[in-house]
């Protein structure tokens, strides 16, 4: 639980590996995600306020197409599951399988980004068209940035999970765990975003 071992005997088994810190680091990561989540909360609050107090002119209202974003939602949800599988494989010390699942996860993330780009290019409005359009791009863009970073992280974890030679093993699994928590967070945000932006 802490870097400070509670008994003398314990202090001897804690060696220089950074494994002993993993608990604080996860705690720190979660605190960071709370902060990150607050940024999104601010954006959502702004969007909902605009929607209720700044009504748009009729010609500025578009119906968003649902198929592509629904596909995106499925991509991300599945990728959360595949990441979970990767973690389980690592626990079972099966690096090969872990790497395979990681690659699938990264692939799904990148597929999400591509499909998001396709949506951007087919939308009938641009960033500065009106308040609604600007907020739409700000929210999805900020989320897309998170997915981009996440995909890069997954690829790094994938490379480090190679065996032999990689730094990530079932003893030192912190980077994988961290990336996984982050990825679930990004997926969760997407679900909220999908509901607020597309369904409401």
């Amino acid at each position, binding site marked *: *639980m*802490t*870097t*400070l*071992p*509670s008994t*003398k005997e314990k*202090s001897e088994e*804690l060696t*220089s590996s*950074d494994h002993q810190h993993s*608990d*604080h*680091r996860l*705690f*720190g990561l979660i*605190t*960071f995600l*709370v*902060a*990150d*989540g*607050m*940024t*999104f*909360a*601010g*954006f959502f*609050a*702004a969007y909902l*306020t*605009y929607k209720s*107090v*700044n009504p*748009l002119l009729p010609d500025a209202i578009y119906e968003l197409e649902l198929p592509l974003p629904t596909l995106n939602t499925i991509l991300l949800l599945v990728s959360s599951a595949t990441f979970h599988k990767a973690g389980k494989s690592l626990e079972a010390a099966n690096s090969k399988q872990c790497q395979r699942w990681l690659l699938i996860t990264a692939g799904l993330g990148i597929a999400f980004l591509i499909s998001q780009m396709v949506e951007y290019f087919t939308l009938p409005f641009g*960033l*500065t068209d*009106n*308040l609604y359009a*600007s*907020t739409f791009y*700000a929210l999805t863009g*900020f989320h897309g940035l998170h997915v981009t970073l996440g995909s890069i992280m997954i690829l790094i974890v994938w490379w480090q999970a190679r065996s032999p030679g990689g730094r990530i093993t079932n003893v030192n699994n912190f980077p994988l765990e961290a990336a996984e928590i982050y990825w679930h967070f990004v997926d969760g945000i997407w679900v909220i975003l999908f509901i607020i932006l597309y369904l409401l």
Partner: protein
Amino acid sequence: MSISLPPANENTSNSLQPTGWLRFISFSLDHKVIGLQYLVCGFLFYLIGGVLAGAIRIELLSPISDFLARDVYNQVLTLHGTIMIFLWIVPVVNGAFGNYLIPFYVGARDMAFPRLNAVAFWMIPPAGLMLITSYFINGAAQSGWTAYPPLSITTPAAGQIVWIVSVLLLGGSSIFGGINFIATILKLRRPGLKLMQLPMYCWAMLGTSILVVLSTPVLAGTLILLSFDIVAHTGFFNPALGGNVIVYQHLFWFYSHPAVYIMVLPAFGLVSEILPVHCRKPLFGYTTMVYSIMGIVVLGLVVWAHHMFTSGTPPWMRLFFTIATSFIAVPTGIKFFNWVATLWGGRISLNSAILFSCGFIVNFVLGGITGVALAQVPFDIHVHDTYFVVAHFHYIVYGGSVFVIFSSIYHWYPKFTGKMLDEKLGIIHFALTFIGFNLCFAPQHWLGLNGMPRRVAEYDPQFTLVNQISSVGALLMAISTLPFLWNILYSFIKGEKAGNNPWQALTPEWLTTSPPPVENWPGEAPLVTKPYGYGANHSNENNPPITQA
């Protein structure tokens, strides 16, 4: 019971770190070095912010805009506010004292994330320098520290963008610091040390860091949207493009009201450390102090719209925010009475540290009273955006936080340097600051009540005399810095040796050498479970006798 502690950051072996004074300009990972970096850096920015304040007060000597052109005045005012808040008070009450003291208080050898800690500090100097150089290159931002649109969208873009980037960096630094404090206090406590045994400053920093983590990101998001409005001509906050300025105000104050507590809660904590030592009594009402801090944290998050009573805020909202804001006076009042009760009947040594702390108590009460008055809509409508508000918040940020920073420097300087400060100079410093401060800001209540708007370079001639009185007070404050500067520089070289524990204090930072060694204690960390056990026989197993190790 004794426990051996492994070094906190083995991977980052301290032998690779520079030693001597070079440490202080390096990417050091030692929490004490980082703390002092924050302190010195913050103080340098304070001097710059002070020069800007001087320029403002010179301009306001006369009712016409003669010393500074109007747009220069606006830039100076914006820089003054931004520097004092984001580069002086926030980094010093949190970063400086927090980094120095929190690891001691939880019995750790360093912060939870030493590297993140160093990164957080090193984001500050570039942000500050950028902000200041923008004044000389394209002109600094002109829309005040609040950067309200549409003003911030219509004033020259270059300065405003630099301002945004700089505040984003400072906000990021503050968030990293907050994460580090929360993790250190909750996760790095030495085994056997319970939360309710921690020195009060730990609680204050825990509460503050929660506010930082919850509210600063909202400011960051808001400023990103604002920069889109300026650069990409979106219309989030631009009414000309269908946007909504009120949304900006809500988001901004959702951060910036908590920000006032980010500036003052740590000061509450520091005062709670200083008073018991110098009046030899336990801190009165420890538990109520803890609950009031947490009460302030919760309430502090739901009062922001008291800054917006004149922004077309609907009646129900005014009602809610008036009530919530008035409620904050309760936990705040509890803390005030606890400090008074701590002093009551104590053996007070009237030194510079306690004088500044007592000055804080007096000023803070006055600022708190005007705060409660401002929370009442019918009154606020009259004085909003007048000098009354300026007086209110200076009583709190200067009379409160800055007084506490000085008090803390007098209290901890012996620990930081191993040398005592000169008491005579300290008392002169206090007298000049206290008189100068009150002379400068008390008259501003009158100015505001009589209708002088804030943030203007020109004013109605009937206010001339009172403004001149205020400027004389500012001059005294500027002069008061001289004995202080002389004192810290001279004492560093020629000061009397302090020894390990000149104040006979019981908190853990005093139970080691002055200055402390790299990992805080030459041997084991002491387990201090009664940090305020003054006046009792505290030399027991849990509270080792004070020895000069």
